[in-house]
Structure formats: C-alpha cells, structure tokens
C-alpha cells in the first residue's frame, strides 16, 4: 500500500513538475519515487504502515513490487532521450507511467477480483494514452486505437469471467471462491466457462497465442521509450495475476485447464519464434519474441504451488529493455533491423550489453535467461514433460532468431563510426549487463 501511495504522489509531482519544462527534474522525481516505492516494499513489516488497516487489499509480495519498480526505472531511464526531446510532455510520460505502475502493483497479486479488475484498468488506460502520445504519427494513432479496442475487449472478457464466477460462487474474494469451488462447484458449467473466460482475458493481456495479434502492430506503432515499459511491466503484472488467480482459485480444476495451457504454451513458442525469424523491423521482432516468452511464462501454471517465475520474468525484462534501449540509441527513426549491422563496434559498452542480452534471451548459461528458463522448467518438467520437451526444441529456433541479430550486430564494418552514449543510457546498459551476469547468485 505504501509503495502505491509513494508512486502516486511521485507521479503527481512529476506531472506538475513537467510544466516547468525541465526534463531532468521530472526524471529525478520519478526515479526517487520508484526507488522509494521499492524501499518501502523492501522494508515492509519492519515499520507500522499508517495504511495497514485497509483490509480489502492484501499487499503484493515485496519482491514483485521491487521487480516492477526496478524494471520501470530501467525503462524510464532508457527512454529518457525520447522524453527529453519532447519537453512539453515529459511530465505526462513519466506521470502516466507511474500511475500505470500503481495499477500493475495492485493487480499483480489480487485477493479480490473487483480490486484486481480496477488494478487492471489503472494499468491499461495510461498505456493506451502512452502508445498514442506521438500525435503527429499515424502509425502511433493506429496502434493506440487498435490497442484500446482490443484491450477493452479483453477487459470485457475478464469482467464477464468474473461475473460468471460470482454467479457460480457468490463472492469476489479469492479465498471464498476457492472454498466454494473446492466443494465441487468447479464442475458447474458456469464456473468452468468463467475460468476459461478469465484465461482468455489474461492470455490477451500477456499476449500469448491465440490472443497475440494486437502485439506486433501495437509494439510497432509505439515508440521505443513506451515499448520498454509496455513489453515488460504489463507482462510481469499479467502473468503474476494469472498465476495467483489460477493458483489460488482454480487449484481443483487443474486437470481441466492444464492441457489447454500446454497447448497455448506450445503454440505461442513456435508461432512467436518462427514468425520472428523473417522480421525486418526490430520492434516487430521484439513483439514476436515477447509472444514466445509469454508462452514460456505460462509454464508457471504447470506447478501452481511453486511456480519459480521470478527469475525468468526478471531476465526477460532486463534483456528486452537492454535490446530496446540499444535500438533507441542507434535506430530511433527507421526501426529497420538492417541498421543493426556492425553496431557492436560503435561503442564497447553497447557491444557488451548487446551480446549479454541476446545470449541471455537465447538461454545460454551462465546468464540470467538460462537460470530463469531452468528454474521455470525445473518445476514444470514433472507435470508437463512433453510440453517442456517441445519448449526446448522451440528455444533452438529462438536461439536462431537472436543469433541472427547478434551476427548482424557483430559484423565488423569497414569504417567504424563511434557512438556516444548519454549518462542515463550508460547507466541502463551497465545495470542490465550486471543483472544478466549476476543472476547466478540468485539461484
């Protein structure tokens, strides 16, 4: 609760500070807000919160809040160049992102479906605005409209699912729903259809097959700066909400939906990686890669008691932010993958961060991506062995996708034009590199 309040206040101050047209002041306020929210989550329990009596909200796990705040911090630092160039709107960008993060924290570990839904909407609505914030560009407007319509469609599906569950069990509280379902109500058609609607809505939000189709267009239309936030925080919050709702509520109908989830995993992985292969636009490649990674995240559902999701989503978020940040350094206008040729030679830090991020996404040890994938599969293998086997085969195709990009970036150019990084870009790339290597200490 304290984290959300700190974030909200920081977002508010940032919004008004933006009017002074001093981008540095805005980013400092937002960064301190994020760090403060992370610290509040870390030290939670060691002090008495003035809001501890607010009963409807059971606080999200500290680690998840810290992860969300850290990822958002990386995202706003990585996108700062963009916000700065548009100093009329710097405050709007940062304020919207912080408000959206409040929703992400609220929804990540719900104990009440109504509160969860409110969190979901608080998360989504600022992002609709952020995608379309570049008013001059028609692709941006198209993406915003597309995202808004599909997103509200998904919200409606989730709401319908919640309504059906309420009809079946008579409660919004997850604990009550679970205890009602456990006595056999889960077999009633209403509860079953409700759970499927929820699954469909969640799949939509995290962008897994078959509800992935909005992803590439929206990612392509959004700017790099917004993409950094959108491709990571939304997915993390969505998958945590999914795991918690399904892990808490639908435990008893596990064998009813796990085959369906396995199908979604395999379809997402193969569809995402195979279509990513021939992309020529970088943000579309990231979109397809994120579809495949959403499929991998769904493995968390296979073992609902011990999902081991944290390391994987952290590794995915860090590597994706590093790649999009690199893309925004060299390639902010045209977004063609062909522009990546030889960029590793333009700046040593750029090269190192790029190699680490791509190898991490391909899942090569000893980088974070491998440990994430390993711990995810570790708990999933006893439950869904064949799906895990197919996932490993798919990740070879995935490695192909990332290596293609890597080989392009490492190609030695005849003339090297060096690129200078700004301070916040150096910080982002250093942090992502350190995080990719340092994951070995968290397993």
């Amino acid at each position: 609760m304290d984290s959300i309040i700190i974030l909200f206040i920081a977002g508010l101050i940032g919004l008004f500070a933006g009017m002074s047209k001093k981008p540095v002041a805005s980013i400092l306020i937002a960064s301190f807000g994020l760090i403060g929210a992370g610290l509040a989550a870390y030290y939670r329990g060691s002090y008495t919160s003035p809001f501890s009596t607010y009963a409807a909200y059971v606080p999200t796990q500290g680690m998840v809040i810290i992860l969300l705040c850290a990822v958002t911090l990386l995202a706003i630092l990585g996108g700062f160049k963009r916000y700065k160039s548009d100093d009329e709107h710097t405050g709007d960008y940062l304020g919207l992102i912080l408000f959206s993060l409040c929703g992400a924290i609220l929804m990540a570990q719900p104990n009440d479906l109504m509160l969860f839904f409110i969190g979901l909407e608080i998360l989504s609505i600022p992002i609709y605005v952020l995608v379309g914030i570049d008013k001059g560009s028609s692709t941006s407007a198209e993406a915003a409209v597309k995202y808004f319509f599909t997103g509200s469609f998904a919200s409606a599906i989730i709401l319908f699912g919640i309504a059906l569950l309420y009809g079946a069990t008579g409660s919004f509280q997850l604990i009550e729903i679970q205890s009602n379902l456990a006595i056999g109500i889960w077999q009633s058609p209403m509860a079953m259809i409700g759970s499927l609607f929820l699954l469909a809505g969640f799949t939509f939000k995290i962008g897994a097959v078959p509800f992935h189709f909005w992803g590439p267009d929206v990612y392509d239309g959004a700017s790099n700066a917004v993409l950094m936030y959108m491709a990571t925080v939304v997915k993390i919050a969505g998958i945590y909400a999914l795991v918690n709702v399904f892990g808490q509520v639908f435990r008893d109908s596990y064998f009813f939906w796990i085959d369906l989830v396995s199908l979604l995993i395999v379809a997402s992985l193969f569809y995402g990686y195979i279509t990513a292969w021939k992309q020529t636009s970088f943000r579309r490649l990231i979109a397809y890669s994120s579809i495949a990674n959403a499929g991998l995240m769904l493995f968390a559902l296979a073992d609902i008691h011990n999902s081991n999701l944290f390391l994987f989503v952290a590794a995915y978020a860090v590597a994706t932010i590093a790649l999009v940040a690199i893309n925004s350094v060299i390639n902010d206008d045209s977004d063609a993958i062909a522009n990546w040729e030889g960029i590793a030679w333009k700046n040593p830090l750029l090269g190192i961060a790029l190699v680490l991020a791509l190898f991490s996404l391909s899942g090569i040890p000893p980088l974070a991506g491998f440990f994430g994938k390993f711990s995810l599969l570790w708990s999933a293998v006893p439950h869904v062995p064949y799906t895990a086997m197919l996932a490993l085969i798919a990740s070879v195709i995935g490695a192909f996708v990332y290596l293609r990009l890597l080989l392009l970036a490492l190609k030695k150019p005849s003339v090297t034009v060096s690129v200078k990084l700004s301070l916040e870009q150096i910080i982002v790339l250093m942090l992502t590199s350190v995080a990719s290597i340092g994951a070995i200490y968290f397993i």
Partner: protein
Amino acid sequence: MALILLPLIFSLLAWFIPSAFTRLFGLLATGMTLAWSIVAVCYFQPEEQILIDFGLRFVRFSIDSLGFTMILLTNAVLFLVFLSNFTGKLVNDNKFASLALLMQFGLLGVFTTNTILGFYIFWELTLLPIFLILYWFGSFEKPRALLQFFLYTLLGSLAMLFAVIGLMHATNQQTYEALLVADINALGNTSIWLMGGFLFAFAVKIPLFPFHTWQAETYTKAPVAGTMLLSAIMLKMALFGLLKWVLPIFDGVATDFWRWPIITLGLIGVVYGAVIAIRQSDIKTLFAYASLSHLGLIAAALMLNDYHTNQIAVVQIVNHSIVSIGLFLAAGIIEQRLGTRKLSELGGLAKIAPRFGFWFAVLTFVSLSVPFTAGFIGEFFLIKALFSANALTGFVASTTLVLGAVYMLRAYQVPMFGPSKFSSFQDLHWSEITVFAILSIAAIYFGLAPQCLTDFVAHSLTQPTH
C-alpha cells in the same frame, strides 16, 4: 581455487592490454596457468580430492586425478595454441586472447565441477567463446555453416539439459558422489531415456557418425587456433563426460541398452571418416575426417565401460590432443605461407623447408600410431578391448590402422615430396619448432611410459560393479 579462476581473471584483464603486448600477454597468461597447475599436481595426492566451494547452490567443484589430468591437458593445449600462433595475426587481437581464456575457464569448469547442473552450465559456457572466435576470425562467407554448428550443438545441449533436469528430479540428487550411489536401475526405461539425452549431446560434440555433418566445414573454415581449440580440447569434453559422468552413473540397464548402438556408430565413424579422408583434396578437411575416425574409436571403446580400457582411453584422449594440435598446426603453416590447402597444388616442400619436413614427419608417425608413441599404446589396447568384446567389432576397429596409414602418408607425401612447386617457403619459426618438439616429446614419453598416466587416473575411475 586459483586453478579455476585464474583464466577468468586473465580473460577480463586481456581487454585492457594494449595490442602490442597482447600476444606476449596471452603466452604469459596461459604459461602461468600451466605452471600453476603443474605445481599443484606435484602437491596432489591421487587418492584424494580437492573440494572448492564458492557458496553457489548448483555449482561446486571437486578435483580428482582424472580432473587433474584434464586440467593439465587443457592448460597445456591453451599454452601450445598461443605459442604455435605466435607469428600469426590472431594472437595480436585482444578479443581472441580474452575469448580463448574465457573458454579455458569454461573447460576447467567442465572438468572439475562436482554437480550435474554445473557440468551443463560450463559445457554451454564453452560454446559462447568458440562461437565468437569462429565468427570473428573464421572465413565463413555466409553465417549458415556457423549457425549450423551452433544450433546443432545447442540442440544436443538442450537434450542434455532435459536429461539433467530429469535426472535431478528422478534421483533427488545433484552431486557426483550422490548420483553414483543413487539407484538408477530402479528407474527402468526412464534411465534409458535420460542416458539417451546425454548421449545425444555427446554424439553431436564428439562427433559420432550421423551427427558429424557440422564438423568438416567448421574445422575447415575456422582459423587454425579455433580448429585446435575445437578438436584438441573441446571435443574431449564429451569423452570426459562419458567417462566420468554418464557411464558410472548409468551403469546397468541404460548402458547395456546403449552399448552396441553407440559402438556401431563409433565404428561406422572409424571406417567412414577414414574412407572420406582418403578422398579429400583439402589438407585441413582431411585432418577433420581423420579426427572423426580417431574419436569414433575412443567412443566405441569407452562404451565397453571396462576399467582397464578406460585408463587406456585417457592415454588415447591425450594422444589425440597431441596429434590434432600438431597436424592442424602443420596445415596452418602451409596455408599461412602458401595461401592454399589443396593437395594438388602442393609439392616438394621438404626440399626447401627441411625443418618443417622433419617435424611434420614426426607428427605424422605419431598419428600413424607407430610403436613407442602414445598412439600405439592407445589404439592397440582399445582395439584389443573391442576384439575381446566381439571379434567382428575388433576387426572393423583395426581397419583404422591400415586406412589411417593410407590417408596420413598421402597427406604427408604429396605436399612434402615430388617436384617442387614453390620456389620459396619460409622454414619454421622458433615458436613452431618448440611446439612440435613439446608435442613429439610428450607423445614419445607417453608411448614409453603410459603407466604414469594410467596409474594416475586409475584412482578416480570407478571399478566396474559387474
């Protein structure tokens, strides 16, 4: 501890060394690790183990006598790679120095780790530097062949990862000692599948017959130093994994199931590699197929899982490293000075470069396994073991001696003798002579006194239970 971490530290340092000193730095760094490991082995009791723990949950180290042998081999190979390329352009590049040292770190990790997941992690870690070395310094016109190499090995590795996860789940153990005593046979068919996952990864890496397609092209297109690293030490990871991990752990149902399939594939590789090598016109491709032939024999003999054969297999592993460094160095020398590797364009080199003629001849004889070299001990006893298992396999295995003579003598005779096709050929540099001399002395030493090696490793090889 320093034994393992030293290469990593040097690898990071290499980025800060000015390029004028890089080759000296590489030589000193690898020389220092080699010296350190020689000193360490002097204080090492073969019956004991050195345990190293960095406080990581899944990665711990313990060095036994087999591990020490492989450490010495790794450090020696790295030193020789830097020394033999002393005149080349490659070692002046600090990217190469750093990556080679990183690879050395990964290899030492593979050979010393005590946990099955650690084995996988280091196994994959070695793939990263060799991939970049091949990409930056190789002559791959199109990345297709390189990607084939990488993805092929990655597919094998992922099969192994699946088997590792399965093994850890099935036995609830992760350290080598605990896995040894775990009752794998009780798993029945599952153990066969798990062992299959490991064997697939190894078969791609060694490589065994139907999985070898990446090998020839990668070896040919790689820089000489890359080929040396690949064939002299990286492929040994698979044989080491077979010898140290898979065979003792899966001793029983699974090994009995896979024994004859693997022996058959290995022996097909022996004959197939040799026959293809005879027909090659490119000297580097010829040596690549020769390597396929030699390694097939070792893999086949290892599958017998016989205590004494395993000791000899270690001798043959060391011998193959010696031979492959020597032969690929010779091929590299020819390519570097003449710009061609085609046998038909070569001839008469012995006359204008007598020192090269002499040392190349010595290495050819080592490769031919003439008596008093390590190869003779190795091949003779491996073939003998295959004979006693089955006369037919023994017969097929022994063709390696005859066919080997055909392609090796051709590979030596065509470039060295006959009418001279070149007017000038710069004879060996002192660094190259040193490498050849070290290799020859080692080969002859292990040929005369193989028991120093076999007795040393015997302490860490498990006695067969059946």
